[in-house]
């Protein structure tokens, strides 16, 4: 009997014990009706081949292990970035359980969202009654300043009209007439979570800006971060830089405090977020700057339509992208970039120079949202690395063109391939047939790490199986240091693992590197 009270074995060691190995072997042999071992190992080898890759990439209907989520998740995340805002998802309640769990698993934080809990009768008669009752309950119970309504595929398929429903609910007294209920239609069968983010932020701006004339521009910059699993570290780092520059700025949608509330005995259902009065005032900003282009296309169109200058970045990572971001802010705000920031920049360059030999010529596969892949590929090329496979399941042909332009701008992008619309099962084939040294993405990449042996660096949403990464910035020069260290740590850990066999390979198990 392997178990004991003194040294309690949980699943990881327990099932390695001989009793359990024997039991599992017997189960397989006698009851599972497995395929013969040879057949299984042949198929395993076949999946590594170019022939399998061609079949795999030729898929037209089946999607396996996609790196994207659906629109409402983006809308829920967006709503969390506004002051005392309860996210209200109109549709079947199971979806909300999934969004809340997904966000909680990544941030290790509460995620508060309500649903209109539509069931069969709502499918037949529409969800108006659910909206009327639901808004009344949310308003009374959770004391929000704003309720941000988005939809699920169910509500979209039956064609519920949010604007009309919300007006109806207000007429029936669910919430006061002047209470803010911005909304966004976010069908799950269109686009992905980045589009849901875009629609919800635009919905909030429209709620406050529509019908209001823009007065003379104030010398302030609006900043929209986009859907960002690292918003906690990133937003705070950017604010620090902006404060150093003495810029007047306003984050529109800032979930950093909401997904990093302190533990001190109180559960804060709402914390931080962009203040509603500030959203109103943001109409008169000099310009709006988006940190992620594909997350904010519609929103930026709207900002331009009301007369603001707009600029967008593609998840600014590394040196040049941060340079450009700071210069753009300097331009709009007419503030100089102070010397302390130049010194910070120099420190990142110093670190990159110190470590360059370990990074030069390394090949990478990068996957994730279009903006992330773009920003990461750019940084990798700055380190002398080669972004060999760049994959975004929610990437469009426009993104493909942009990526190709970026990659063509550097000799390190010469052999790169761009894979819009492909999933992680396709990436598996790519990694077997055209291997790389490192994989950059989210936690789902661990299956690729296991199957192909490519070390994974977790640098984007969602990260379920490692803790606290999101609390540290990836953006700015400080963020660059974090990126650099994360990649280097993986390289060194891997090198140690390969060389630590005593008396066999440990001649390269070096102390100083």
């Amino acid at each position, binding site marked *: 009997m392997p178990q004991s*009270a003194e040294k*309690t*074995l*949980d*699943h990881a060691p*327990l099932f390695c014990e001989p009793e*359990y190995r024997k*039991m599992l072997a017997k*189960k397989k042999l006698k*009851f*599972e009706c497995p*395929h013969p071992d040879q*057949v*299984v190992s042949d*198929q395993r080898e076949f*999946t590594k081949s170019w022939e399998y890759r061609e*079949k795999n990439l030729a898929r037209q209907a*089946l999607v*396996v*292990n*996609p790196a*994207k989520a*659906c629109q*409402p998740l983006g809308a829920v995340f967006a709503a969390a970035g506004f002051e005392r805002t309860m996210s209200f998802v109109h549709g079947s*309640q*199971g*979806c909300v*359980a*999934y*969004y809340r*769990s997904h966000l*909680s*698993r990544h941030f290790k934080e*509460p995620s*508060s*969202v309500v*649903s209109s*809990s*539509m*069931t069969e009768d709502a*499918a037949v008669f529409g969800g108006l009654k*659910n*909206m009327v*009752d639901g*808004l009344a*309950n949310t308003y*009374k*119970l*959770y004391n929000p300043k704003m309720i941000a309504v988005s939809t699920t*595929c*169910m509500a979209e*398929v*039956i064609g519920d009209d949010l604007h009309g429903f919300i007006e109806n609910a207000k007429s029936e007294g669910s919430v006061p007439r002047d209470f803010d209920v911005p909304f966004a239609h976010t069908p799950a*069968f*269109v686009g992905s979570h980045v589009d849901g983010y875009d629609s919800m932020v635009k919905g909030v701006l429209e709620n406050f800006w529509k019908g209001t004339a823009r007065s003379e521009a104030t010398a302030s910059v609006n900043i929209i971060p986009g859907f960002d699993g690292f918003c906690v570290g990133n937003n705070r780092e950017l604010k620090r830089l902006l404060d150093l520059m003495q810029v007047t700025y306003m984050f529109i949608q800032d979930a950093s405090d909401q997904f990093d509330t302190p*533990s*001190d*005995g109180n559960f804060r259902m709402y914390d931080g977020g962009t203040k509603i009065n500030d959203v109103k005032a943001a109409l008169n900003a000099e310009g709006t700057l988006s940190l992620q282009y594909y997350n904010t296309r519609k929103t930026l169109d709207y900002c331009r339509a009301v007369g603001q200058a707009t600029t967008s970045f593609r998840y600014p990572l590394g040196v040049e992208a941060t340079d450009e971001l700071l210069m753009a802010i300097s331009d709009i705000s007419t503030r100089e970039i102070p010397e302390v920031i130049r010194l910070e920049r120099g420190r990142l360059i110093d670190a990159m120079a110190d470590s360059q030999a370990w990074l030069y010529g390394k090949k990478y596969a990068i996957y994730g949202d279009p903006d992330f892949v773009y920003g990461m590929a750019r940084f990798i090329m700055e380190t002398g690395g080669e972004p060999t496979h760049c994959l975004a399941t929610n990437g469009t042909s426009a993104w493909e063109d942009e990526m190709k332009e970026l990659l063509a701008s550097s000799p390190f992008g010469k052999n790169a391939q761009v894979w819009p619309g492909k999933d992680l*099962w396709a990436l598996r084939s790519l990694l077997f047939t055209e291997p790389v040294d490192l994989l950059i993405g989210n936690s*789902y990449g661990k299956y690729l790490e296991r199957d192909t042996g490519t070390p994974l660096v977790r640098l984007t949403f969602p990260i379920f199986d490692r803790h606290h990464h999101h609390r540290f910035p990836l953006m700015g020069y400080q963020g660059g240091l974090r990126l650099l260290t994360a990649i280097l740590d993986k390289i060194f850990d891997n090198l140690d693992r390969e060389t630590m066999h005593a008396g066999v390979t440990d001649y390269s198990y070096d102390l100083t590197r």
Partner: protein
Amino acid sequence: MTFKYHNDSDFHAKLIADVLSQYPDKAAKRRSKHLSLATSEKDGNATSECEVKSNIKSVPGVMTIRGCAYAGSKGVVWGPIKDMVHISHGPVGCGQYSWSQRRNYYVGLTGIDTFVTMQFTSDFQEKDIVFGGDKKLEKVIDEIAELFPLSNGITLQSECPIGLIGDDIEAVARKKAKEHATTVVPVRCEGFRGVSQSLGHHIANDAIRDWVFDKKDIKFDPGPYDVNVIGDYNIGGDAWASRILLEEIGLRVVGNWSGDATLAEVERAPRAALNLIHCYRSMNYISRHMEEKYGIPWMEYNFFGHSQIDASLRNIAEHFGPEIQEKAEKVIAKYQPLVWAVIDKYWQRLSGKRVMLYVGGLRPRHVVTAYEDLGMEIVGTGYEFGHGDDYQRTGHYVKDGTLIYDDVTGYELEKFIEGIRPDLVGSGVKEKYPVQKMGIPFRQMHSWDYSGPYHGYDGFAIFARDMDMAINNPVWGLYDAPWKNDRILAAVAG
């Protein structure tokens, strides 16, 4: 069950009145039927039943913790069957959020002959909604056949739009099953059906009945001690820690439902001598069917905590007669030293600690005695998706005055926890972080907080260790900043 304690009925009744007073009238009226206290029978200690309304629609606009029918079918019943490909049929989200999240442990080569921790979806686009998805589904199945030839079958897990746009997935299933000479099971588990995961379990069970049983000529020699383990999803290896005990007492586990299961195990189930059901809520339907159609009796059991494990092993053995009974006694005796070492180690640290539970379909009652085995007291419990018969069964487990909450809303649960200030809360990931912010120890009781197994004697040791590490963690003493804490300030001022 000899562990005696009482809960404060008056205080709990006041808590219920307080939370209800915060709702709009209509919602308060609806919610009041779901909140109650366990009360004793007049003639004895055992509580008769916990009377709350259950399995009713959630109130809109409040934070229900429930999931949907798809979660019940794909996430619970079908998803863990390891050698089949389960297609999340519809838009990308449902499959994505449920991907690899339930810790249904299995052994197999993922992507080759095993597929549990993969996300297969038809990734519906707008055109599929407009023109229907059947053609696409056919193609999806063809592509699976080509790329995953060692998969032993396919299930079609319907997401919301499938039913709404009227796709005929049954016709697709029949056509493709014939073409590829494989099992294809359509499951109508659209998320809007029913009021929670629960209907999804039922629909999934019916799909096994209608699309798997009696469809093949099964070559299998049944034995007198053959059992199916029904309703164990192998969370963190639960089913393995259970199987080892059942084998030790001389039984042959021919099917494990559905953690670490293969389709073959499900197909052979009607030949077993007895069905042992752990999660009654999710799988009683198929057990009843097998009883009616094949005459296989079924028996509930509980493998949480030593007193229930002992009792369950004896009950199971009794069904098979002296030979197995004798072995069962030997097995129980064999594990007693472990059990008592665990209790000796943790009793002092845990006894008298008060626990609130809020989980899904069996744990709100099944784990009660596991806590009591460590001297802990249950002050409140409730189900996300229990039915009347679950609450009836709960009566056998809980003490007088226990707070009972059905489909509890986030708001109510938070207020109950604030009022009671228990020493431990056991619930899910959505509840974990709010509770911990309040400074109250928490364990996830759907996923075992990434630990486990908790079933069986091996699991009981882990369960005890985990509850101790949660409750007696030094972090809870660090919540107050010393400059805000008068007691510490006074001591420093000395």
